[in-house]
């Protein structure tokens, strides 16, 4: 009965129920002595009034203490301004996470942007994939088949990127990025020109991009019908495209694809019939394709139909993005738990004022709201900072990667979607980070902190803080290891231990136009005269022409060795082959290991790399005959073996077996000019360009991927690895940031604990402990608490090693040296983080501390 009464009174808000019971006893004694009867009824009535009054009072208190949301904001702001240390640290750590997340999101968003044409999601790429790889050339009959599939596609067209020289009467020759397109490709894109009309297939007329029209033709409204010279031929200007259209890779000019050509080389674009999905189209097309074109051995091809935005997955880019994303999420979690920690310690130091707030009537919900509002303000501040950082990062990414990005509409920039995402993230993390401290603050026993003065030793919340810190330490230690590995991979890619002096070899590319250079003899004449001019010059030490760029790409052929039966089970070996002119081996500094180099006049000789020889030919390589299917199908005789060239492919560390064929035998239309300068590179490049122009004023001399005319091969290689480089750089920064964030967290909690235990230290020092002993105690304590998290983090890094190893260049994912180094570095940082508050504690006057000042 007694317990029930006490509980009821408390529930109504009466704080001293046992006093009520004592008073009622008192009343009973008095009433009995005064002769009053009916105590039970009287007492029940009194209890009722007590409960009612208590409830009423509580309601009044709550109403008075209720905080208007705007007031809550003002209070939160005022609290932050008064004690800015913790909020600023929290905002900074959150800013790191938000900034990184916003940048990654910006990239992903930019990548995933749809094609900016009507019903862009219906425009797809078509690719035919055979076991050897994707076909870059289709026969007319194959293209006709694709065009006939009208239940799947409204239109199927082809396009091929190119480079052209455009000139006119009032227009000096200029090099532009161009593309050859079939009219069907324009139909598939469904973009109407701003001026003029798209030309029919056989007109030979060209279409200008808006930018080119403004720059070169001064936005002349009468440009349609003007005659210009493109690649030496006079053509009409048929149309100008609207601003922003630059399909596919920032082209400035569109030329018709040659209809008379039996083969169509390039990529395919198509517009799906509305309602047909890419998967359906893929399946149905494949059946029809293989019904007509399965090859003699019954090998079938796969037809791939996918949206242009799916291109973002190729080249290891999606892997890199995913890796970055996971790193960023880890970083954000670390930041979150950091903020939670900081807010917890803040709640404890403010527990007195919070308790007072509760004492005058604020309910637990009110206290909770107050803490959450503060956390939200901090998170928003962090988000603002993070967005500033992110816009810088995004600009950097767009600037370094944009020219090589791929499709012209894939721009990465700060936009409302990114800002919105960040704000949402901020609100979410504020809730997550702030909920725990808010709830604890609300539930904390009101009277305890009031009795104990401002110390407020809430032991439970300190344990919670250390738990959170352990999580932080684990994440950031793992992140630090990964960041170190990424940085190492980064350095490896820069080294380019290529096996040839990549920094000293410069590159330009030549594409002879097929109309004027149709005859092989004409082409040969051009090449020989070019080489003569280059070799005569003093500025050029040595020069060579190559088909395929050594270090980057060449032509793949399937290997067959004379006298060796191919293993039907094994996958056919793919050999990378290059056509090379005389002096090639000198330019690239390859040493002869067996036999001889190629000589002018060689018709069927081939020189192979040392690895090729050992892999496929054994010790007896010379004189063996090989065949490279897909590249000049004939037998070649091995005359020499040269040193290896080792490169790192875009996503994997692969060493490729290489074969060098005589250029003359390949009769190329396009080739690279590779040269080593005798002195200044710029001077040598000028010689090359003037030599080419002298031979043919309208020859488009262009750069290799990754740069303009005359860049060193290192730059070209860097371009190939651009994504890895960017991912590595960002990853390295991310890992360091994570470690820094954890260090801040550690500092926060150690500082708080030291502050709380000041009387303890003061006592020790008063009893004779030396300052350095106290300092040592603090640091050792901090390190001991850091250790479990560190061990967990290193275990995580060890376990995740193989996964990350996939895209670390030549660096194994599990590296005990790195783990050990990271552990030591981390402990050092932890010791430093503990030293700062520790020193402050050790240099205090013990007497002052004990007095409580």
């Amino acid at each position, binding site marked *: 009965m007694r317990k029930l009464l006490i509980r009821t009174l408390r529930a109504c808000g009466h704080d001293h129920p046992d006093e009520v019971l*004592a*008073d009622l*006893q*008192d*009343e009973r004694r008095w009433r009995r002595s005064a002769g009053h009867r009916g105590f039970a009824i009287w007492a029940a009535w009194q209890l009722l*009034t*007590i409960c009612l*009054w*208590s409830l009423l009072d509580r309601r009044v208190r709550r109403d008075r203490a209720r905080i208007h949301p705007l007031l809550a904001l003002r209070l939160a702001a005022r609290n932050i301004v008064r004690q800015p240390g913790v909020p600023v640290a929290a905002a900074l750590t959150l800013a790191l996470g938000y900034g990184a997340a916003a940048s990654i999101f910006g990239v992903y968003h930019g990548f995933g942007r749809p094609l900016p044409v009507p019903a862009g999601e219906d425009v797809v790429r078509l690719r035919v994939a055979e076991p050897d790889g994707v076909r870059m050339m289709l026969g007319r009959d194959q293209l006709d088949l694709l065009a006939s599939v009208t239940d799947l596609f409204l239109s199927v067209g082809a396009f091929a990127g190119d480079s052209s020289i455009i000139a006119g009467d009032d227009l000096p020759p200029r090099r532009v990025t161009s593309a050859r397109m079939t009219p069907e490709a324009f139909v598939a894109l469904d973009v109407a020109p701003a001026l003029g009309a798209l030309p029919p297939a056989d007109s030979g007329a060209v279409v200008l991009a808006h930018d080119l029209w403004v720059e070169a033709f001064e936005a002349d409204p009468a440009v349609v019908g003007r005659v210009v010279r493109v690649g030496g031929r006079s053509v009409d200007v048929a149309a100008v495209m609207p601003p922003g259209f630059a399909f596919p890779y920032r082209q400035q000019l569109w030329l018709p694809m040659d209809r008379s050509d039996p083969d169509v080389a390039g990529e395919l674009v198509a517009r799906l019939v509305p309602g047909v999905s890419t998967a359906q189209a893929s399946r149905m097309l494949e059946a029809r394709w293989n019904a007509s074109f399965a090859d003699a051995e019954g090998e079938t091809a796969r037809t791939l139909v996918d949206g242009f935005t799916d291109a973002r997955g190729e080249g290891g880019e999606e892997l890199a993005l995913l890796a970055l994303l996971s790193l960023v999420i880890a970083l954000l979690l670390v930041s979150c738990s950091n903020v939670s920690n900081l807010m917890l310690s803040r709640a404890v130091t403010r527990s007195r004022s919070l308790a007072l707030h509760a004492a005058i009537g604020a309910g637990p919900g009110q206290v909770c709201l107050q803490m959450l509002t503060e956390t939200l303000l901090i998170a928003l501040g962090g988000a603002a900072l993070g967005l500033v950082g992110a816009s810088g990062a995004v600009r950097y990414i767009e600037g370094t990667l944009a020219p090589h990005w791929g499709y012209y509409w894939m721009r990465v920039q700060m936009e409302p979607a990114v800002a919105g995402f960040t704000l949402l993230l901020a609100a979410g993390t504020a809730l997550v980070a702030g909920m725990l401290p808010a709830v604890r603050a609300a539930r904390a026993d009101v009277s305890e902190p009031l009795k104990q003065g401002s110390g407020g030793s809430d032991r439970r919340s300190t344990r919670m803080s250390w738990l959170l810190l352990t999580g932080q330490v684990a994440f950031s230690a793992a992140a630090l290891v990964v960041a170190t590995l990424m940085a190492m991979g980064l350095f490896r890619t820069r080294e380019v231990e290529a096996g040839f002096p990549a920094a000293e070899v410069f590159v330009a590319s030549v594409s002879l136009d097929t109309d004027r250079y149709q005859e092989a003899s004409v082409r040969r004449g051009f090449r020989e005269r070019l080489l003569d001019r280059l070799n005569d010059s003093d500025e050029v030490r040595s020069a060579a022409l190559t088909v395929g760029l050594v270090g980057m790409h060449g032509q793949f052929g399937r290997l067959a060795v004379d006298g060796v039966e191919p293993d039907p089970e094994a996958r056919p070996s793919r050999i990378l082959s290059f056509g090379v002119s005389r002096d090639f081996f000198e330019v690239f500094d390859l040493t002869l290991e067996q036999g001889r180099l190629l000589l002018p006049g060689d018709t069927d000789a081939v020189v192979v790399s040392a690895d090729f020889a050992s892999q496929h030919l054994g010790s007896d390589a010379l004189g063996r005959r090989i065949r490279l299917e897909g590249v000049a199908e004939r037998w070649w005789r091995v005359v020499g073996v040269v040193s290896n060239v080792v490169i790192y492919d875009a996503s994997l560390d692969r060493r490729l077996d290489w074969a060098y064929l005589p250029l003359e035998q390949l009769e190329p239309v396009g080739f690279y000019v590779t040269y080593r300068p005798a002195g200044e590179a710029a001077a040598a490049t000028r010689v090359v360009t003037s030599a080419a122009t002298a031979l043919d004023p309208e020859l488009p001399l262009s750069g290799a991927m990754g740069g303009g005319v005359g860049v060193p091969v290192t730059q070209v290689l860097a371009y190939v690895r651009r994504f890895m480089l960017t991912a590595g750089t960002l990853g390295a920064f991310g890992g360091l940031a994570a470690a820094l964030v954890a260090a801040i967290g550690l500092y926060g909690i150690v500082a708080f604990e030291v502050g709380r235990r000041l009387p303890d230290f003061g006592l020790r020092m008063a009893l004779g402990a030396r300052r350095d002993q106290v300092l040592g105690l603090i640091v050792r304590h901090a390190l001991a608490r850091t250790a479990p998290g560190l061990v967990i983090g290193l275990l995580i890094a060890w376990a995740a090693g193989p996964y990350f190893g996939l895209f670390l260049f030549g660096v194994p994912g599990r590296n005990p040296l790195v783990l050990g180094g990271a552990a030591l570095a981390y402990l050092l940082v932890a010791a430093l983080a503990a030293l700062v508050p520790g020193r402050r504690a050790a240099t205090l006057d013990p007497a002052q501390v004990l007095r409580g000042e």
Partner: protein
Amino acid sequence: MGDEYLGEFEHLVLLAILRLGDAAHGAPIRRLIEERAERRVSLGAVYSTLRRLEAKGYARAREQPAGSASGGRPRRVFELDRRGQAALEASRRRLDRMRLGLDVGALASRD
């Protein structure tokens, strides 16, 4: 000094606390007011007023050790704070000034 207005019941409770001294807690206060002020008073009203007086700073509670008047348990007794005394004084002076020169009894019996 400015805001020290007392309600009538608060006034009565403060006076009761003064009178009761060491025995100033819920039940005796209630009985005293019922007896002297001749009005029915509930314990709930007394407690509520004591809370309010405490919050305003006019009265404070102190722990009285077990034994003396409390039937073997430690309990809280109330005493006047300086602010409470000032409030009582101010209230009395106010009433006196209003009453000055009036004979309330004669006026009342006139009607």
